[in-house]
């Protein structure tokens, strides 16, 4: 098991009371899909968000099959709305 830290933004951050990040334990070699499933299970406030959330690994968009590298910077947020 590895403990991974995930940065949260916008609605996701609000759902967890303003926390800038959460930490989750995952089996080694876990994927983005595993991460989302674990968050949906462990943090009920974020369960709904896991369906449409965008995920990044080291500041690049990453998708369900991607394996989480050791020590990577992970983030989750809704589709962007800047401008």
């Amino acid at each position, binding site marked *: 098991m590895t403990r991974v830290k995930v940065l949260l933004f916008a609605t996701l951050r609000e759902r967890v009371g303003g926390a800038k990040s959460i930490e989750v334990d995952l089996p080694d070699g876990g994927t983005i899909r595993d991460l989302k499933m674990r968050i949906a299970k462990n943090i009920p406030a974020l369960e709904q968000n896991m369906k449409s959330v965008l995920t*990044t690994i080291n*500041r690049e968009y990453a998708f369900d099959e991607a394996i989480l590298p050791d020590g990577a910077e992970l983030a989750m947020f809704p589709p962007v709305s*800047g401008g």
Partner: protein
Amino acid sequence: MQLPNHPTIFSITEEELDLDALLDSITLHSTGAAAIFTGMVRGVTSRGDAHETVYLEYEAYKPMAEAKMKQVADEIRARWQTIEGIAIVQRIGRLYPRTPTVLIACTAAHRDTGVFEAARYGIDRLKEIVPVWKKEVGPNGEEWVEGDYIPKPGE
């Protein structure tokens, strides 16, 4: 395609936008034309779900947002090789109606080699891939504005 002296400015900032300074910073000795797009906070919106806005609260994933702005600039240079300077700036924090919030500026020697198209492309791409969000605060409550673009692998 970026020549060594072709400036690219990109930043997430809480400061007021200074159009004259930004334009100056991307104007070369060979520059004859600039197209600049700015977005502002609308106090009243008529299109779609008509509503009033008291202010917008902008938030960014700053290091990734700046990296994606750099990517937007690279995409512009790949498409319009005539572009000389590019500035992309997003202001964040609490911003009130009539305040400029975002700027995309592109310079070139002449106006007919893509500056308008490049600036338009830049703001469209910024709204797709640069991780910035805004919460709208109106007279009757607040709501996060949700985008609808899902980046594809490699974006």
